[in-house]
């Protein structure tokens, strides 16, 4: 199942200038990923609000990977599209997959014990989100572009 939403802020070819992989196995790894993402957002000179947004979105999705995906990896990529800089975070796991993506995106729905706002929140905090899920695993990627 594939779900892709979001405003395409820019067209043209996107090149990945740098990629880092952060393993996600435990909640300590979520903290480490947050630090990595914050570092990258600061390096790209994101505004404080955008830094906080992308770090929070990373935190939500990373925790989902650890809890529901039974662990996986986060790929942190720096993007360049023309003169525009962006940050893409891709979360990959080999877990059981998301049974119903539409339902999972709905606010207040959770199959665990959380608030049920993580996935929808991550979507609202980033510019676009792409979810590919199946019984062999899930890949969720979000992108945040620097406005100018």
């Amino acid at each position, binding site marked *: 199942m594939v779900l892709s939403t979001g405003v395409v802020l820019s067209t043209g070819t996107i090149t990945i200038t740098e990629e880092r992989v952060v393993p996600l196995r435990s*909640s*300590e790894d979520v*903290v480490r990923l*947050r630090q990595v993402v*914050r570092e990258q957002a600061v390096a790209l000179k994101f505004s*404080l*609000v955008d*830094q*906080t*947004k992308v*770090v*929070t979105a990373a*935190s*939500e999705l990373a*925790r989902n990977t650890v809890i529901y995906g039974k662990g996986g990896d986060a790929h942190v990529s720096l993007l360049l599209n023309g003169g525009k800089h962006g940050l893409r975070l891709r979360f990959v796991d080999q877990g059981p997959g998301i049974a119903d993506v539409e339902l999972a995106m709905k*606010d207040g729905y959770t199959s665990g014990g*959380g*608030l049920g*706002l*993580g996935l*929808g*929140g991550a979507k*609202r*905090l980033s510019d676009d989100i792409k979810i590919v899920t199946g019984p062999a695993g899930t890949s969720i990627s979000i992108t945040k572009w620097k406005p100018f």
Partner: protein
Amino acid sequence: MAQTDSQGLAKILIEQEQQLVAEWMANLMSTSSSAAGDVRLADQCTHLLRSLRQAVLTGQTRNIQGGEWAEVRQLLTEICYTRARQGATPRETAIFVFALKQALFSRLRESVADPALLAAQTLLVSNVLDELGLFTIEVYQKGREEVIARQQQEMLELSTPVVQLWDDILALPLIGTLDSARTQVVMESLLQKIVETGASIAIVDITGVPTVDTLVAQHLLKTVAAARLMGADCIISGIRPQIAQTIVHLGVDLEDVVTKATLADAFAVALRKSGAAITRAATAR
């Protein structure tokens, strides 16, 4: 064969103890700066050599985890712990054992004429001392892990002070990451303090929390609900602009909770609620 090899080795360990200790120490002095300063070095070397001799005499040279090697392991553990505490690197710790290997090799070369026997004994010494060297690394690592575990425990306790600001006003300044283990401690210490002081207002300050995601929000809401059940109202303060925007995007509902931007604002609200007020003294200026 293995029995006679170890008998031969034990013989060298007994007869040439003096030379071995001297050579071993000389090797240590030249390779490890931290060993050079240790006044008990000669003592440690002699002790270890003697217990090594006892273990070798039993003929159990294949497995150093057995009961025959308990004394050697005990001695090595003590030495490694002292070294690790003094800030020695794992390399320096392991060299303590490997320096003996060089000394033993040169003793063997001088004492054993038969090439086949020399090869067999060299192999034996090599195997045993490699095992002991690896053992020191393991012990060193374990010592480090204990230090890390203790520091985590200390951080857990350090980071959750509940302070009393006024008669019935408590403040809980949160700092760092709110993972579930810490939140549990935070919640317990706040509820405990509410019982002790009979406070009616608790201010939870999140200025020092870098990321507020849904898990942190959920922990905060649970803390507020629990405090409310005990008869205390909660105010959440330290909500910075970027955190406010993020919470809105996440869709977290904090409408039932009184929130303020700064601890000072929250304190003013709390004072008003409890009927107290702060005024400037008339004689000021």
